[in-house]
């Protein structure tokens, strides 16, 4: 099933979907796998698999170091696709490639799309590829039913948001604030206004990310957004105590006393 109908179907039974994030090969693929198992326990709907890049300039310190460490550990693009293929076969959630454009450019856009489709990915998030430069990649993706997930940001004009809305497929990733990943975001009227501006620019489901890390954040987003996007906070939990700490994090985040099966 394509991304948008999949998300809409999930939304009929959940008032807020959850997208999470894993940096491929950090701390190891075995840890990644265990993290995905925890995410499945908590009925996560979508997972971004970040392909490590040496210059992750849109990422905050935690993800930047995770990228760097994964590369030092010898993680290659082919390993990330292989991991994606295994995960797609095993888990119920959809998987997205997340990474920087050079990873795509270096292997060639057509090859990238072929391998992403073969690995069972649903789409991709490439934050440093502006829509002006994405025409060919998006055409190739459409031919394989893969969705390019577009970012909308609070600094965009309404005209720009409209343009982004036209290019978006699957869902829209709304960046809650300025800055890089992993810093706290104020969930306030400013964010509500931004969400309203995004809604006017797209009919697609709307995910909110950057600094979403607590149960209060989730409560705030419920009824306002379709998907809460959890990145740094989950990795941070993993670094503090592996799978049990991550379970505790998601239980607290979702207001559950214990994990439920997917």
């Amino acid at each position: 099933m394509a991304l948008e109908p999949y998300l809409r179907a999930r939304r009929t039974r959940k008032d807020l979907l959850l997208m999470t994030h894993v940096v491929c090969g950090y701390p190891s693929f075995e840890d990644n796998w265990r993290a995905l198992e925890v995410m499945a326990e908590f009925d996560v709907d979508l997972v971004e698999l970040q392909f490590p890049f040496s210059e992750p300039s849109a990422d905050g310190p935690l993800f930047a170091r995770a990228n760097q460490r994964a590369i030092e550990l010898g993680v290659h693009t082919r390993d990330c696709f292989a991991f994606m293929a295994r995960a797609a076969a095993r888990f119920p959630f959809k998987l997205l490639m997340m990474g920087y454009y050079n990873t795509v450019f270096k292997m060639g856009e057509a090859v990238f799309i072929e391998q992403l489709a073969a690995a069972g990915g649903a789409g991709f998030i490439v934050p440093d590829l502006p829509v002006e430069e994405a025409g060919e990649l998006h055409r190739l993706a459409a031919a394989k039913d893969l969705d390019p997930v577009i970012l909308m940001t609070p600094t965009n004009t309404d005209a720009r948001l409209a343009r982004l809305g036209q290019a978006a497929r699957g869902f829209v990733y709304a960046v809650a604030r300025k800055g890089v990943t992993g810093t706290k975001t104020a969930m306030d009227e400013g964010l509500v206004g931004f969400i309203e501006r995004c809604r006017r620019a797209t009919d697609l489901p709307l995910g909110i990310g950057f600094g979403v890390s607590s149960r209060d954040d989730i409560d705030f987003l419920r009824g306002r957004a379709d998907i809460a996007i959890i990145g740094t906070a989950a990795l941070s939990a993993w670094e503090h105590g592996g799978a049990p700490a991550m379970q505790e994090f998601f239980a607290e985040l979702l207001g559950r006393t214990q994990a439920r099966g997917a």
Partner: protein
Amino acid sequence: MSAPCVTAIPSMSLFDFAAGREGYYGAYGGCFLPEILTSTITELRDCFRACKADPAFWDEFVEVMRTYSGRPTPVTFLENLSNQLGGARIYVKREDLSHTGSHKINNVMGQGLVCKRLGKTRVIAETGAGQHGFATATMAARFGFKCKIYMGAVDVARQRPNVFWMENLGAEVMAVQDGQRTLKDAINECLRDWVTNMGDTHYVLGTACGPHPFPEMVSYFQSIIGIEARAQILAEAGKLPDRVYACVGGGSNAMGIFQGFLDDAGVELVGCEAGGFGPGPGGHASRLAYKDASLGVAQGYKTYFLQNDDGNMLETHSIAAGLDYIGVNPILVHLWDQGRVRFEAATDTEVRDALRLVMRTEGLIPALESTHAFVRAIAEAPAMGRDEVILINQSGRGDKDIFTVADAIDDQAWKAFIRAKAVDYGA
């Protein structure tokens, strides 16, 4: 002689972009930034366009450079070196005599004027050798901007004198601990600052790299070198140079001097990259002269990068921190494609030898970066005729490199001095 005329920018079709290809030079350049910066980069592009279209802006820039930085910098004939080598007559454009000791101040003062027009109150900059950070801290002090400089921790360690000056000029210097802890990592950190603070902050990118309009804007301000140099060499040598040599890290000083001669078909332009330990991945920073780089998109633009098959960047190495960078100016790659600019590399060993020779024969102390251009000129001059003319861009002065040079030539007296100083401070 009187000051050369610097009132006109050379006619350059390079910057007449085709529809839908703004910021591209052939296949290179462009603007690849996270969406959050779209409005900021658009604002900068529009502001720079307005500046460029306003003749009063260029006049203001030239006046600032004359009264504050000592422009025009002279062209010096190296009679001793020319005689010793026995070939072409060698002239040097003396950017080392600029305020803060390198060509970096040209770009920085220009962007300072742009920053004022943007109404922003804070500047950030990356720096490798420290020259750009030093120049930016100077500009910020002069114009009253808050200033933060990002510098790789490795570079902080090897260029302490520049860190000292930046801090004393009122800038905050942040040692970047990520990645290779050199120039590229400082650029990443600047981008992270910029996506957070773009409301009041202008990013003073130091070289002619990064997303459009930076390659064009930095080249525009640095073109003052070439405009002056063309008039000066005609006056001093009585003819245009046969070859112009400039070192290429990011490429801003090379773009600066080359622009003066782009329309002169008989002038060969030679870019000199950091050969480090020689060819082979990881041991140098030669993107074009060696064969270890390939086309990629990173740090906001498309160019040749030293990268592996996954598109992750390789380690780079140079004796000169200011050349120690993974990418290269996209305009220069385009000119190289077209055969307009030739690329060569100079190794660390060649640089040490050339520096010694230039110091002893001419009493000049070029920066280790600039010495790369001297290496290639010295290598090629003997095979040229006495009627031929070489022009080298001495982009910066070398006294900042005293620690590196003292290490390289193993100067015992200097080491004894540092030991004594250390004892002093420890007491």
